[in-house]
């Protein structure tokens, strides 16, 4: 049998919805199942509507779906909002009887989550009750769930843990007499890979890149990455500073990097806007920095807690004048890990800024990552050793063929390090000389050819297909599933996923697309920004675009539907 079940747990902000999701996800993961969990919440602390949607399968899952098999509604609103997403025969658990629930399309079962929770000790346990109810219906062994509770809440006092376990048990018994049509026998297997969200993966990646300093200003959905760094900083030599604003944050990491530690910041589009001047400072002073932009919909404040991929062109062109930079867009937690580590390495090697484009969906969703997350044994150093014999001969911006000048550190020897945001000469002094200006622009751009060699080509599946879907960043999972489904329907369809966005892999993309009859870009923005870039860099014009920009992650089904319509 193939399992592919979607469960949604919804309620108000403050009801602990994310915790229900986390507990259930862990339970599935521990049973050796594949699972992912997508968080959907509003920009508020209490009330409103939030939910978490789980997809559970015995085969790898990479993206959300639209069709739900089970809905656990912790409040009454949830039912109304998600009713239409239920698949035929689906099951809804609602807190109170509803007059309008008696359709034939799906079943409704009343569970008084709060009432049950009170019996276990407190109404705030309603979320644990709900987890118990759902897991029971799915067929999950109750001791498995209890173990998950124990390891999740091992920081709590005994009493509260016991209450949670009680609540879980009451949840199980509350639906004893109910069956869930798609429940399955939970054959316990060893867990598949690692359960991780993109934010934590990026934080691990930063440590693998030897990040020592991070300055930030809180901004959804970037805060998760920093929170993970803060949690990890307890045991590693990493200092994290909350700045007064994003301008301070980016300049602090520039100062720290200049002084000799690898440094990063994370923000979202509005904060990135404020960092654009600093980006140029890093560029002209050739100070390595890594900036994560966790995208959300805008313009301006937009939809603070939701997802988008609409900052691509902006980050490629951000800051006045021009300079080489890397832009990466990981598509999975493992890519977030490895790309972040690489970002530090490349930033330092080439003395250029690196921007990593993440988004709310990738950052906040839980995935099963089967790749192995390895700590590198060593991290290279690219700073120049001091020459105590001839300290005065040192020139921070010495002209070289590679464009890379030896980078010494201030106060680390007898050499003086002089950097300057005006156009400067080799020593780092202000210059107004036209020829030196030319030489310095040429020097900075000279790095590009070696930078291009670092760019990894897109990953392609079913390259020799008539139709190609091409996407970037977090669209990887949904696109991959869409390709699989379209092929299952007999279409000659392949998929292309780009992580290394800039310098754009012109040749590789051109070659891939040159062979396809038609190609469609798949993106979470309004203007098909990857499509624009492809045309600019390769001359190829996309056949059509599959776009979504309402802040919710795109599902494979939406892609396949759109493609089929467009092909008609």
């Amino acid at each position, binding site marked *: 049998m193939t399992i592919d079940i979607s469960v949604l747990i919804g309620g108000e902000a403050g009801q602990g919805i994310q915790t229900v999701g986390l507990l259930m996800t862990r339970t599935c993961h521990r049973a050796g199942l594949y699972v992912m969990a997508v968080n959907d919440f509003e920009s508020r602390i209490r009330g409103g509507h939030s939910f978490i949607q789980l997809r559970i399968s015995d085969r790898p899952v990479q993206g959300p779906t639209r069709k739900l098999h089970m809905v656990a509604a912790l409040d009454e609103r949830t039912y109304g909002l998600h009713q239409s997403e239920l698949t035929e025969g689906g099951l809804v658990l609602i807190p109170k009887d509803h007059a309008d629930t008696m359709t034939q399309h799906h079943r409704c079962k009343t569970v008084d989550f709060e009432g049950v929770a009170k019996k276990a000790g407190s109404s705030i346990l309603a979320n644990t009750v709900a987890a118990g109810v759902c897991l029971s219906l799915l067929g999950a062994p109750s001791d498995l769930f209890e173990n998950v509770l124990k390891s999740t809440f091992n920081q709590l006092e005994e009493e509260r843990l016991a209450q949670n376990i009680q609540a879980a048990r009451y949840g199980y018994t509350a639906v004893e007499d109910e069956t869930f049509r798609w429940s399955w026998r939970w054959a316990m297997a060893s867990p598949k890979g690692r359960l991780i969200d993109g934010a934590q993966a990026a934080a691990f990646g930063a440590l693998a890149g030897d990040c020592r300093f991070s300055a930030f200003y809180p901004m959804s959905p970037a805060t998760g990455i920093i929170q993970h760094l803060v949690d990890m900083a307890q045991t590693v030599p990493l*200092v994290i500073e909350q700045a007064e604003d994003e301008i301070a944050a980016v300049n602090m990491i520039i100062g720290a990097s200049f002084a*000799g530690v690898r440094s990063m910041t994370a923000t979202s589009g509005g904060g990135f806007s404020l960092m654009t001047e600093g980006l140029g400072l890093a560029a002209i002073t050739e100070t390595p920095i890594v900036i994560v932009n966790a995208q959300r919909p805008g313009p301006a404040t937009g939809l603070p807690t939701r997802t988008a991929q609409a900052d691509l062109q902006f980050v490629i062109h951000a800051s006045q004048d021009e300079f080489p930079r890397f832009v990466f867009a990981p598509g999975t937690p493992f890519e977030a890990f490895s790309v972040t580590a690489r970002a530090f390495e490349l930033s330092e090697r080439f003395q250029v800024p690196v921007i990593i484009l993440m988004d709310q969906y990738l950052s906040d969703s839980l995935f099963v990552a089967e790749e192995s997350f390895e700590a590198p044994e060593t991290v290279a150093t690219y700073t120049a050793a001091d020459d105590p014999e001839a300290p005065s001969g040192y020139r921070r911006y010495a002209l070289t063929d590679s464009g890379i000048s030896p980078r010494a550190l201030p106060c680390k020897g007898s050499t003086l390090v002089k950097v300057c945001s005006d156009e400067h000469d080799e020593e780092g002094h202000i210059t107004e000389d036209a020829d030196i200006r030319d030489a310095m622009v040429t020097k900075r751009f000279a790095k590009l050819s070696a930078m291009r060699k670092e760019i990894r080509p897109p990953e392609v599946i079913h390259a020799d297909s008539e139709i190609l879907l091409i996407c970037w960043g977090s669209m990887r999972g949904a696109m991959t599933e869409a390709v699989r489904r379209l092929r299952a329907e007999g279409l000659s369809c392949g998929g292309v996923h780009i992580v290394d966005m800039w310098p754009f892999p012109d040749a590789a993309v051109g070659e891939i697309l040159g062979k396809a009859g038609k190609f469609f870009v798949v993106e979470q923005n309004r203007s098909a920004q990857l499509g624009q870039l492809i045309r600019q860099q390769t001359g190829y014009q996309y056949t059509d675009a599959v776009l979504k920009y309402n802040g919710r992650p795109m599902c494979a089904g939406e892609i396949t539907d759109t493609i089929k319509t467009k092909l008609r």
Partner: protein
Amino acid sequence: MVSTKDYHSDYPNHWCPGCGNFGILDAMKSALAGLDLPPEKVLIVSGIGQAAKTPHFLQCNYFHSLHGRALPIATGAKIANHLMTVLVSTGDGDCYGEGGNHFMHAIRRNIDVTVLAHNNRVYGLTKGQASPTSMDGMQTKMQPGGVIANPFNPLAAALSLGAGFVARGFSGEGGQLSSLIQAGIRHRGFALIDILQPCVSFNRVNTHKWYKDRIAPIEENHDETDLIAALRLALGTDDRIPTGIYHRRESPSYTDRIGKLNDKALTDHRYRPELLKALLTDGYL
């Protein structure tokens, strides 16, 4: 023994002849040499403006950064390597205008840097617009009807924000200025030295003579630890401009308070894979 010659730079100076910046430059050299600090142990961070060009005219490590952003750059650098002596060369526009927010928050952090604010009460490099410290009513080409705002009072602001070292110098009093800079560097924590400085090209009001007529060293019996007394001096409504140390009170600096920085600089740690490995195997998310 370090001498002022060690701080000599051959890079041609960009300032106008007669500018107050020259006095500040000399005082810096003599202060640094006087403390026996060699150039390679000193980092000067500056923003953008005439004042911010200072480090080019000295011999030292420097980061000549963006307009207004010297303090966050200095903060980052100090955290990375707190063993450096960090000075900030900045202008009144740089520090109190574009960089005003960083000024407030660097003080709150008590980051151990010495800020030399070359306060000429005008935007020099951009040709004479009013600055935050320009006097109410001062006319410029850009403010032909005169400035309409209370001048920013850097000393009062720094005091009210909790700065532990607040002083005022004058570019024309090199000896005093040099000892203020030394005291500022010796102070462990944020030190502000607001330095009154004539701008011969654009400030026709606050001239050398104007200052000479008004400045006077703070009286001997002033209690440096008394915040209210310092505020009284800073907010004084008569014509006199007291120079010297308004307030001095030490408390642990930002980097003193970060436990992991106590023994060695962040730059001196080595990457240790076992630490990450431990985190990577550490159970659940």
